[in-house]
């Protein structure tokens, strides 16, 4: 297969490509998922910014 005769190298060659495909498929399937926490996140961003200001004041 692909001009390679060692099964372990063929496996690695194929798995590299399959792993990348897995990433692409996973990313596309979940493309819009995970954004529902946005309101919480926004509140947190604001807390984080406050802390940032505190750190700034300390400095």
């Amino acid at each position: 297969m692909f001009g390679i005769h060692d099964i372990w190298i063929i496996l690695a060659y194929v798995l590299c490509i399959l792993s990348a495909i897995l990433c692409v498929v996973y990313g596309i399937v979940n493309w819009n998922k995970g954004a529902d926490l946005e309101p919480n996140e926004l509140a947190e961003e604001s807390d984080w910014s406050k802390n940032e200001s505190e750190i700034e004041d300390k400095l």
Partner: protein
Amino acid sequence: MLGSIIAIIVYLFVVTFLGYLGFKHTKTSADYLVGGRQIHPMIMALSYGATFISTSAIVGFGGAAGTLGMGLLWLTVLNILFGIFIAFVVFGKRTRRMGHNLDAHTFPELLGNRFNSKFIQGFAGVVIFLFMPIYTAAVLKGGADFIQTHFGISYEVSLLFFAAVVAVYVWMGGMKGVMYTDAFQGAIMFIGMAFLIIFVYNKLGGVSSAHEQLAELYNKPEIQEQTAGLIKGGFRGWTSMPASGSPIWWSLVTTIVMGVGIGVLAQPPLVVRFMTVKSNRELNRAVVSGGVFILMMTGVAFVVGSLSNVLFFNETGKVAILAAGGNDKIIPMFIKQFVPSWFGVIFFLALIAAAMSTLSSQFHSMGTAVGRDVYEKALGKKGNSIFITRTGILLAILLSVILAYLANKLDSSMQIIATGTALFFGLCAASFLPGYIAALYVKKISTKAVIIGMITGFVIGVIWIFFIHEKEASSLQLCIALFNKTSIVKDTAMAKLALVDPIVVALPASAIVTFIGALTTKNTLSENHLDKCFKGI
């Protein structure tokens, strides 16, 4: 030559401009450290990829593939599965959330705040500051090797020039600049590597034909003669795995594939990246470009590194490592000798971009480790965080340049860049990975269990590196100085252990000790604190 110089000047102008933008927007300590948290997923993925991949991967590990063959593709498999899929999907989401909950700005700070321990933060900061320069030196060496070969100037001048450019850029920009510049550099890298794989397969008559030629090359009598030393160590050709249990098999499987493949999960600069995105959606989206990016970087480098033997042999009658004059010179020499000069310029920029992005993240990690984690938090000192961080970066640059200078004096047939990289990745995995996983997934684990696990992994890792694993111990010289041999187990009944990479022993030891600690010690962290850590998880 003129084309190369003009292209480099344009490139430097763009990265300096992006660095300047970062500098202009760097207003506060927190801003400098994590570059804000509003980062586009494409920028994040390209930046993550560019941080992950460097001259170490392309020149160092690509060169290792030139010597050891396509078995390195197992590292690509692990890089994608662990470094992208598991890192983003499994660890990334919790890391981002916990980082936000705890207002963490660095990897040591995430662990320290999670376990409410200044010791953990300080200890992790010290490990990063002391040992990351070895990895940084490996990346610097990859860049300097390429500049040396491309322009025909001395290694020392190449190294100084390269380090100076990176230093100015990091000094000006901080993380914000780094993030955008990394993405720009990631794009250059992608285009460069895509051209390279098409060019090489095309030159050798297609995918199967290229691999067939590489397989047949090994059977030629003159090649058997040239690789006699490697064959003795277990080498069986570039399209075969080394003989099981042979020294080369141990080196390939435990040091290169496992050390780097697993070690990436506990890499400080990469963990920080997760805290810089807005939501899990951005992480999901980043998996797409991340997986493809890593395949195009490491997969291409390892295939091309292996196939370079066919082209070198056809041209010079020698295998790559002999024709190039050293393992780490294979890829630079291959580019100089075989690809059209216009492409050589693009590839040169891709490599310099790869090195710059990784180096700037490394210098940043070391600077924050000493400035924020050790000085501010662990020692409880008050002071100008930005000043201390930048001083830490300057010290880290100096130390790394000295190590990169010394690394060039080692035996050039060794995979110096790959070994240096694997050393740091393995040590990070042994010291931090069990604690990091526990931080994210085991709510009730005690701080003591994590501390003892970290110390165990670190101590065993260091002892193994300096005194047992011959490949590293012989280069570091301490074992020779104290015991007059390259490994303390050499010429004993346990001599085989000298082939085993530290990660194989130190990581399980650290995990077991952490587990036993979890069973035997009681969690003393308050419910309030734990609720804060795991809010939204």
